[in-house]
C-alpha cells in the first residue's frame, strides 16, 4: 500500500491532479469491493448457514467471494458463530494477522450482543465490538443466507464509498 498512500499528496500539486486521484480511487474501490476473499472462520450455528451460502443454491462465488484458509490472504473476516471468552484472544490475533484493507462482518445475534446467550451465560462475549472493529452487523440466529448475501452487498457499497484519504491516517 506504500505507493498508493503517497500518491494523492503528489497528485494534488499537479494542476487537474484531483481527477487522477478520484478516478484511481474509483478503480481501487471497485476492485476491492468486487473481490472480497473471506476467512473460513465458523465457530457455531452460523457456520452451517455460511456453508449453505457458499454452496450451490445461494453461492458466494457469484459476488466474487471465495473462502481462504489463512488470514494472510483474506480481506473479510466473517465471524460466524458465538465468540466465548476463551475464543476472544484468538479472534483478536486472527484479525491482527490479516493484511491491511480488511473488513469484519459480524454474522448472527451472538456476535452483535451475545444473542440467545446474553442472559445467564458466564463464558460468552456479549458481542465482538470491543474485540475487533466491526463493519457490518447481520442480525438473525442464524441469519438466512439471503440476509448474509445482503450484508455482503452492503459491505461492497461501503467499500465503494471509501476515500483514498481514509488510508492516510490508518
Amino acid at each position, binding site marked *: 500500500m506504500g505507493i498508493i498512500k503517497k500518491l494523492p499528496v503528489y497528485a494534488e500539486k499537479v494542476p487537474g491532479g484531483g481527477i487522477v486521484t478520484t478516478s484511481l480511487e474509483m478503480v*481501487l474501490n471497485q*476492485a476491492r469491493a468486487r473481490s472480497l476473499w473471506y476467512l473460513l472462520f465458523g465457530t457455531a450455528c452460523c457456520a452451517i448457514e455460511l456453508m449453505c451460502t457458499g454452496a450451490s*443454491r445461494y453461492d458466494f462465488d*457469484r459476488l*466474487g467471494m*471465495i473462502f481462504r484458509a489463512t488470514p494472510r490472504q483474506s480481506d473479510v473476516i466473517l465471524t460466524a458463530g458465538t465468540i466465548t471468552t476463551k475464543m476472544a484472544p484468538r479472534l483478536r490475533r486472527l484479525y491482527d494477522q490479516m*493484511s491491511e484493507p480488511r473488513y469484519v462482518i459480524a454474522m448472527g445475534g451472538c456476535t452483535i450482543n451475545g444473542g440467545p446467550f446474553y442472559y445467564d451465560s458466564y463464558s460468552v462475549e456479549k458481542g465482538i465490538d470491543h474485540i475487533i472493529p466491526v463493519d457490518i452487523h447481520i442480525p438473525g440466529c442464524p441469519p438466512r443466507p439471503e440476509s448474509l448475501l445482503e450484508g455482503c452487498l452492503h459491505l461492497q457499497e461501503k467499500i465503494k464509498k471509501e476515500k483514498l484519504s481514509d488510508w492516510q491516517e490508518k
Partner: protein
Amino acid sequence: MNGIIAFGELHGVFAWLYDLLASTGLSQPWLDVVRYTVLGAMMFVVLALIALFLVWWERKIAGHIQQRFGPMRNGWHGWYQTIADAVKLLQKEDILVDARDKMVFFWAPVLCFVVAFLAYIAIPFGEGLIVADLNIGILYIIAITTFTSISLLMAGWGSNNKYALLGGMRSAAQAVSYEVPLVASILVIILFVGSLSMVDIVNAQSGFMYNWFIFRVPFGPIAFVTYIIAATAEANRTPFDIPEAEQELVAGYNVEYSGMKFAMFFLAEFVNGFTVSAIAVTLFLGGWHGPLDGSFLPSWVWFFLKTFAVVFLLMMFRWTYPRLRVDQLMEFAWKFLVPVTFANLILGAIIKYAGWYW
C-alpha cells in the same frame, strides 16, 4: 504455408521489423538484445492475459461442475473478476514476518513467477511463432520447469511456519519422484523424432491426424497417459496438490504470503498448468498442425484450441478427484509410473529398431 493469409503471415511483419531495426545502425549484439526483449515482452503480455483468462475459466468451470454459476456479478458472467482480484491484491498490505528468512522469503515468489514464463521461449505457438527455436528445446523446458519446486521449497522454508515447511518438503518429494516418469515418457517421442528441437518434433507429426504421436500405437497412447499424470503432479494440481493441501496444511507453502507475493504464486500456478498442457500438445497432439493435411485455420488457432482442451482436462481432474497422501503419491510414482514408462521406452526402441512405425 497455410492456404489462408492470416496472422500466420507473421514472417513478413517480422522481416520488415528487422530491416527497420538494422537500419538504425546498431552493432550486432545490441540488435539481438533488442529483438529478444521485444519478443519476450510480447510473449509475457500474451501469457499474462492467458493466465488471467485461465483463472476466470477455472472458477467458471468449477462453478458449473458444482451446480452453481461461479463469478456472475462482475461484468457479463464475471469476465473482469480476475482483473478485480489482481488489482485488489495490488493494494493488499505485504506482511513480512520478523522471524522469516529474508532473502529466501523474498526471492521465492520471484523465482516461481519468472521460471513459469521462461519455459515459453522454446514452445512454438504456431508456424514460425517461436521466440527462439533452440536446438535443445525440450531439454531446456524440462530443466526450467523443475525450478518451480525449488521455489516452493524456498517459500516453505523462508516463511518459518510449520505448515509451510511441511508443504515445502512435500513439494520437493513430489517433484523429485515425478520428474523421472515425465522425462521417460518424453524420451519415447524424442526417440522417434531424433532431435530435441520443438519445431522438429512438431514437423515430425505433420500430415494427417494419424501421424500425431498420440495415435502411434502402442507406445504413443501409453506415453501420453503417463505424461499427463506426471505433468499434473509437476503442476501441483489435484490429485497431486499436496504442497498446497487446503484441508491439511491450511494453505501449504503460501501460508505466510499476502498481497502481490501471493498473487505471483497464484498466477505462476496457472501458468504452469498452461505450460504443461502446451508441452503435451507440442509433443503428442501435433503442435500447430490441423487434423487434415492442409488445414483451413491459422496455425496458432489450432495450437490454442488443443492446449485449452488439455487445460480443461486438467481442470476436470481437479474438481473430481480426492487428494493422494504423501507416501501413496511417491509409491505410485516409483512403483507404477517409473516401470511403465521405462517399459514403454524399451518398447519404443524395439519398434524403432525393427522399423514397424510409420
